[in-house]
């Protein structure tokens, strides 16, 4: 069984912190297929947080096919998270390397590159509605 923790100063919404901690446990093999995750009531009692926060996190993980809820029994791990195949990693790493090279050639320093990456990353998040300023 895993235990959750909450970083209230992190700026990451609490439900997302729970989602991330379950995924981390799946990646590290701390949770395996068929394992039960803590009940909503247990998480609420442990962290003293809003029950809807936990429900939302578990629903999100169900939607991604990682957890399954069995009414009256609890919530269980449906599949573990293999980190994606090393081959695709290598390819992504190569194209990122090329991009970084061209950014440096354009005269961007380390901080500017990080800032550009971060704003672009947040700007291309799914379901983000668009407007202009």
């Amino acid at each position, binding site marked *: 069984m895993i235990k959750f923790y909450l970083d209230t100063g992190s700026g990451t919404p609490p439900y997302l912190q729970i989602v991330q901690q379950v995924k981390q446990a799946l990646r590290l093999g701390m949770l395996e297929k068929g394992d039960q995750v803590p009940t909503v009531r247990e998480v609420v*009692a442990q962290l003293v947080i809003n029950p809807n926060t936990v429900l939302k996190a578990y629903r999100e993980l169900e939607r991604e096919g990682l957890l399954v809820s069995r009414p009256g029994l609890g919530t269980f791990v449906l599949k573990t998270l293999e980190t994606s195949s090393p081959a695709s990693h290598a390819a992504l790493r190569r194209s990122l390397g090329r991009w970084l090279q061209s950014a440096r050639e354009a005269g961007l320093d380390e901080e500017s590159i990080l800032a550009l990456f971060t704003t672009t990353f947040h700007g291309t998040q799914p379901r983000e509605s668009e407007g202009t300023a």
Partner: protein
Amino acid sequence: MSNALETAQLGRRYGRVWALQDCTLALPAGRIVALVGPNGAGKTTFLHLAVGLLRPTAGSVSVFGHSPQREPLTVLPRVGFVAQDHPLYKEFTVNDHLTLGRKLNRRWDEAYAVSRLNQFGIPLTRAAGKLSGGQQAQVALALGMAKRPELALLDEPLASLDPLARRDFLRALMDVAVADGLTVVLSSHLITDLERVCDYLVVLSHSRVALIGDIEEIVRTHKRLVGPRTDHTAVAAVHNVIEESHTARQTTLLVRVNGHIFDPAWEIADVTLEDIVLAYMGQARASVSEASGGGMGGPWRSPLDDEKHDEERDESEVTR
């Protein structure tokens, strides 16, 4: 989803002073609502109107579709109310309080109350006045929840408790919320007390609703923008500017964003819920002092507002 509580242009006046005015809102069922505002913003008045202890001066309030004043027999069994400072009869034992609750309520689940009290190791034969502050709060909560309400209203339940007792109290309350799926409204002048447990927010300031909505959505849509000192009308045309401050070279804005901010001149940062709440309170204060002149400032005005109420001050000096 249906609403547990709705108000329309709800207002309450004490003498010449409005404690709450023009309050139109809907609280969805199943949410845990933080009712936040400075002391005197109208939180207690709002809760007393919701539970029928006060009659509205203007507008209306309905709980599960019924008026708490006109249909108390329909509304009150479904509502649990814990008043400020969880008042108990100091000489009465915990058992006496249970007897009182049993005799006064149509809906009463004594086994439930007793099991909750046992869970916290509270001696049923002890006089309430001899219990610690935290234990008294737990007794008040257990009594309020013994009705098995669908809506729980708690007025400043954490104010008199130390940090450990606060945590225990909220844990007990969340446990009820999980098990029974009830709607909860908790008032406090500190949002940080409630941030972990609440998912819906109502900010009252100067007797009016300054901000309302889903907390996650509120935090997600508010950003702090820092940029070189420029005209920010382009930002203000698309996004709502809540707070602005300027130095000779820099402009800092707190905005509610509509969509994405593309202008690279602005550095964009997340804002804490506390900062957002404080910004809305500041905005409400500014609009009140702009609009004042009449007796509209609410019962507890800032010194700034008081200067504009010479007439009232004269009266109070006569009575002194």
